[in-house]
């Protein structure tokens, strides 16, 4: 499903959480993009996303897509990071029954999916309860 080139291209974002900050208006884009949607600026500096954030929305996936079935049920949320950027990611190592909007979470490096039994291992970020 995910070939080497496609995976490798996103490594700065998946491993190091590199985002693009518009030098014109300071809006941060993750992943980085070429044109700022706020001020149409085209110059960006590389910044690292905040590690901590808050659950803005979440669900518990009971019917998982292929490649994720071993982990279901699992939570996925939209996390609003402390720098204001929002990302979609799994929320793991948590009590699914108690998970709530507003929960404080922190990022960890995890294996996100694998390309079948013999394909590449695809790493990235997930979030875990903070504190």
């Amino acid at each position, binding site marked *: 499903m995910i070939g080497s080139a496609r995976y490798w291209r996103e490594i700065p974002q998946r491993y190091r959480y590199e985002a693009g900050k518009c030098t014109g208006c300071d809006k941060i884009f993750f992943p980085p993009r070429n044109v700022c949607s706020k001020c149409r600026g085209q110059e960006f500096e590389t910044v690292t996303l905040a590690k901590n954030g808050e659950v803005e929305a979440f669900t518990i996936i009971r019917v998982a897509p292929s490649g994720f079935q071993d982990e279901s049920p699992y939570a996925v949320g939209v996390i609003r990071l402390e720098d204001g950027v929002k990302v979609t990611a799994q929320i793991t190592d948590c009590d699914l029954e108690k998970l709530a909007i507003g929960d404080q979470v922190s990022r960890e*490096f*995890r294996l996100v999916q694998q390309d079948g039994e013999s394909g590449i*291992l695809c790493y990235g970020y997930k979030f875990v309860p903070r504190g």
Partner: protein
Amino acid sequence: MEVGIVGYGAYVPRHRIKVEEIAKVWGADAPSYKRGLMLQEKSVPTPDQDTITMSVEAGRHALVRAGIDPAKIGAIYIGSESHPYAVKPSGTVVAEALGGTPDIHCADFEFACKAGSEAMFVSLSLVRAGEMDFALAIGADTSQGAPGDALEYSASAGAAAFIFGHENIAAVCETTYSYTTDTPDFWRREYQFYPRHAGRYTGEPAYFKHVLSCARGLMEKANVTPDDFRWAVFHQPNGKFPMRAAKELGFSKEKVEQGWLVPTLGNTYSGSSPMGLTAILDKAEPGDKIFMVSYGSGAGSDGFIWRVTDRIREIQDKAPQTREQLENNPIYIDYGTYAKYRGKIRKLAES
């Protein structure tokens, strides 16, 4: 030139399984296992945790404590017997995630449970030789014990990372010594899922011979005795072996307990004595000396003598402490969940 640890960190997965839960499935007598092996529970990696992910987390903790620019790390060595890929390094992922690429030397090490200390040994040596200012060594494993085998009660998951340098040292490495022979006590052949071991042969001629010989050799080389040390840590395949080794060498229980994580952590293989060292560094005080001997089946032991410096106080609280991770908010799972997480259930092959 003095060389030593400038930053360290550990990572402990949050999931645990109790000895009783495993024993129940196999009709084994839990109390005797707990007593005999001195084990209560062990950490379990979730399907999204492996040697690479735990190494990244432990490495990040070490970087925070070291307070250095990751681009200055000259080498990264990951010791493990559970590298996620059979061919393709773990270290490249970790180096990339930590921001250490591309000016970095990288290799994965394997030597059963000794791969972590091996990485430490080589890292130290490169810094001492002046090849680089900083080197990162990690010991990590998500080891498998065959279902129903005695190893299933202990094989667990965890990682420890150390950044070595020659400035701002928190624990100086005073002496090292290694002891190696060919001893087939534990192995896993290519393409086999579970390792095999030689039962009671893993004790006297294997673990104890190498740990004790290495420890004695190290003390002789440094001209020290157990009385010179406040702390000691030995490889911990179960609770009993390191305690017995300590006793035979003359280290009191009090010196060993802080780094004796195995009763509630399990055997983290390449992470075992390195993680014990991190737990000791979390509590050590300037001037303390730490005695460390690893063990890897096959077989060999690496010995280290560490002298803690004033800087330890500055870095202890900069990242999560090891026992804090071990003790806070564990998530207990049943054997079914454990079997699913560890890939022990035969499933339909994906088309």
